[in-house]
Every structure is written in C-alpha cells, then in structure tokens.
C-alpha cells in the first residue's frame, strides 16, 4: 500500500472511531501487512466493508483484545481493531457479534465472571462509541473458565486476559 492510501485509511478510521489517537493508528510491528485486495474490494464510492472482508481484511481478521491485570481499559494498540470492527458493524447493520470476556486464573471463579463481563462491556462501549449499534452486540463472560493456556506465569496470564470477538451474523 502506498503512503497516500495509508493516510487515507488512517483518516477514515479516525472519522469512524471516536477514541482514535495518534498512537492507536500507528502500524504495529506484529500486525500482518494489510491485504491490498481487501482494500480494493471495498466499494470505492463509499469505502464500506463487505461481508467477505471479515476473512480478508487484515484489521477485521484480528478478533482478540488483550488487557492488563485486573484492568478493563482498552490499550492504545487495540484501538485500531475496535475501530475497524465498529466500522464493519456500521457498514453492515444486519451483522451481529458476541463479545466473550475472559480473565486469567488469579482470583475466584464468580468474581472473574464479573471481571470478564466488565472487559466485554468495555469493548462493547468502545464499539458503540465508534459507530456500532448496541443492538448488534451481545456480551457474555467466560470468567476464567476458558483459558487458552494453563501455566502459572505472566506470559500465559496475559494471553488469557482477553475479549474475543465472535461474529454470529456476518
């Protein structure tokens, strides 16, 4: 992608995302290169996302937001993901998503259910602030019931403190 297109994309995201910061749109080192095809497949007149973009668009393909310990604040590096999914919800009003909040193993099960829900709601709030409709989003909490790893260390814990975005209607 050339510089102009990149700036245009950044501008587009910043318009749709209320909580857009300079840091948020900085391309991330670990992020896969943006798929040219996905961008050109957007309707050029409106720049709207299409159904197939969920599988091809580099930003939309990212469906996990990670959190700090006992925190529900969305870190700057995940604001771009929130912004593109908010735009998708806006562009496709029939689409539906489930946000699944998760925690690390520390603390008790029922309290962690509450913490997982709080993270899910933080992502939901950011999505609606960025243009998604609350009616398109269903938040559930798995607490610490669905860990992706089970080791007792920060590396594993940081992978479990997450909200997963699951589309139930594209």
């Amino acid at each position, binding site marked *: 992608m050339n510089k102009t297109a990149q700036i245009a994309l950044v501008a587009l995201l910043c318009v749709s995302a209320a909580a857009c910061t300079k840091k948020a749109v900085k391309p991330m080192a670990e992020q896969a290169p943006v798929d040219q095809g996905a961008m050109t497949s957007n309707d050029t007149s409106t720049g709207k996302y299409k159904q197939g973009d969920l599988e091809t668009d580099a930003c939309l393909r990212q469906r996990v937001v990670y959190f700090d310990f006992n925190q529900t604040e969305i870190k700057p590096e995940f604001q771009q993901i929130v912004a593109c999914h908010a735009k998708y919800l806006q562009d496709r009003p029939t689409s539906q998503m489930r946000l699944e909040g998760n925690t690390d*193993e520390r603390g008790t099960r029922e309290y962690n259910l509450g913490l997982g829900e709080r993270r899910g709601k933080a992502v939901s709030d950011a999505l609606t602030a960025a243009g998604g409709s609350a009616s398109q989003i269903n938040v559930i909490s798995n607490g610490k019931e669905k860990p992706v790893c089970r080791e007792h260390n920060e590396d594993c814990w940081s992978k479990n403190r997450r909200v997963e975005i699951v589309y139930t209607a594209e």
Partner: protein
Amino acid sequence: MQKLTQTLVLVLAVLLALITLPASAQSSLNIQIVKGTLSSTPITVVPFALQGGSPPPTDVADVIHNDFNRSGKFRALDKSSIVELPSQGSDIKFDTWRLLKQDYIVVGRIKDAGNGMVQVEYELWDVNKQQSLLSQAMQPAPVGDLRNVAHQIADAIYQKITGVRGAFWTRIAYITAVGLGNNTTYSLLVADSDGFNPQVVARSKESLLSPAWSPDGKKIAYVSFESGNSNIYVQDITTGSRQLVESHPKGINGAPAWSPDGSKLAVALSFSGNLNIYVLNMASRQETRVTSDNLSINTQPVWSPDGQSIYFTSDRSGRPQIYQTSASGGGATRISFQGQNNQNVAVGYDGKQIAMVQGNGNVYRIAIMDQSLGGQVRFVSPGPYDESPSFAPNASMLLYAATDGTRGVLYSVSADGNVRQRLVLSDGDVREPSWGPYRER
C-alpha cells in the same frame, strides 16, 4: 519371671510402635500434619472383630480412624501400633493403652444379620478412668452401607468426646473437568465427606460451577454454561429432575446460595447492566434486588446463619473485599480489611468463623476471620491458587480447591489449620467443592 518377660515384650512392642508410627501414618493416608498437634486427643480404634459371615468389603475401624485423623481434633493410633485386639470392653487391658498414651479406645464387632445384612456394635472407653462412655448396637445395614455406618459411629464418638456434633456422615459436591479443549467433559458429582462413593449428578460439554446444597440436602443449585451463557439450575439429586431458575439472556446468572430455610436463593445477576445481588423467592419466582450499585462487581452472596443478612464480594472500594448487608437490601458494611483483596466468603454454622480467599500479590490463600476474636485472620492453606472454601456443617473442617501443577485438586483442612488432607477423587481437574448439610437417618 514369666510376668517380667510379658512386661518386657509389651514394652518392646510399644517402643517399636512409637518408632514406626510417624512414617507409616504419613505413607498410608496422605495426611499432612501442618503443625504440632499436641492439642489433638489420642484415640485408638481397634479393628472390629468379625462374628460370622464373610469379611465385608469395608474396614469399619479404618474408616473411623481416618475420619478422626482428618478432623485435626484426634490423633488415631496407627494400625501397626495396635498390639492387642480386644473386641469388647471386658477384653481391654487398660495398662497397655495407657503405656501407649491413649486417652480413649474404641472396640467393636460386626455380626452377620442374614440376607446380606450386618449389624455393627461398638463401645467407647475412657482409658484413664477405665470407664465406658458409649455402647451402641447400630441398626442392621446392607454390607454396602458399612461406610455410612462407620461415619455415623465416628460422629457419635466425636460428639461424646468434644461435645460438638460430628460431620463425617455428610456428603460433598464438586465439579470435575476431564479432557482437553473442546473435548472437555464437566461433571457435577456428589460423594461421601471422605471422597468415597462418587456419583455423577449432571454432565455438560460446557463449564459447570458454584454448586450449592439446599439446607435439606435434597437439591443442588449450580451454574451451567451449556446454553452458551451462564444460567442457574436446581437439580434434585435423588430423582435427577431439574429446573432452570435463572436465565436472563443478557448478562451473568451466577453464584447461587440457599437461604437457611431453603425458601430463597441469593444470586448474582447482571441483566440490568451491572452485576448485583438479588434474592429469588423459590415459590413466587419473584426477584428482589439486594445491592444497588452501578459500577462495581457484586457477587458470591452467602447468607448469615440467621437468614437476616448476606455477605458478598464487591470491588466498590477498588479491589474486591467482603461486605455484609441486610437480606432485604440497604447499605452494606465492609468487613474485610486485611490483605490486598478478599473474595468468595463462607460462613460457619454459628456465624463466628468467616472463611474467605485472601489475595496478596500472586498468592491466594484461605483465611479464616474469627469474629469473636476481633476480626483477626488466620491462614489455613498455603496457596498459591487456593479458592472456594466451604465449611463442614459443624465448622470443624473446611474443603477448598487448590492446584497441583496445572491440575485442580481438593483439600480438606481442620478449621485450626493444623491438619490437611488431599482428597483423591478423579482424573482431570477437580474444583468448586461444597460441603453438604447433616444427613438425617
């Protein structure tokens, strides 16, 4: 001369017994003596004599012996140290047991009662006073019920000596998770208080948690994720029939706790947008909101024994802490002030002992706050990931969940923290223990 030889043999036997005692006690039972147990009472349970019929599959004396050791109140003499085998009071040579520094001795016999039934008789004697304290013939029972009979005997002896009702003849509920990832099967099980006779009550491909016994011991309320979100069910453990009692499609339906009279269920619900405590009337199905907070997490409600107030976990002050409020709602009072955070409260039957999970850094341990001692906290588990404390109905012991590597395991611990035992229950993860009420014959 013969008398001297006899005495020598006896002294040697006693010495040998004392030398071998610690090692054999450790290896046979997986009981950890955490601190010196000088306060525990020495008692001998002599293997019961078989009078007719074939040997039953249950060693009655062994079950009683293990109950006593697990309680922390008693130190039962190791089997290998039992040098004589009296089966009735008139056979007891009290000098022998005095030399072994025993305060009490239990003897008994198992009689064939025909048709696969047996009758157990036992006697409890005070060694120093050479006095009979209890002598009882149990109801004839099927051979398969001998563990129950043994626990009932342990309860009667425990009560006679300590003045507190025994809680060995009780059941526990817990959750197991067997398998990995999407192939995990979750089960709700009920077992005897020592982990024997596990029975599956419910199974699910999705997580189960928070089992809670109804006060009559007939039903268990629990949380299941089988429909995708958390919902609360109440299941009759005899018939297996179950009711869906809380299933708001929006938010959490969790943390059920029965009121002491069994007519209500305190729950944590977030359909309103924030997780709060409610009381569900089981007859009318009416929900009454107890906490009215719009920002914090409020969960894990537990009733006070008089049913007047509810303890719960809330992070309204930042970190999670324990609060107490009237069961009909209104303001809440914070009751936990030690440690970085406190969660997951359990209350003893008399309301004096309050157990909770206390987190400090990355270490989570079971702490007991004794309200009669000015809110002081003592730790009864070592951590680092302990949770789900649950008191026995006489509050003499607790169950809690811990980890062994990445595996979940259950421990029982005496309320003074002195004696701890790991329950060997199942392959896979074991978690969420809940100690049931007293059983009625």
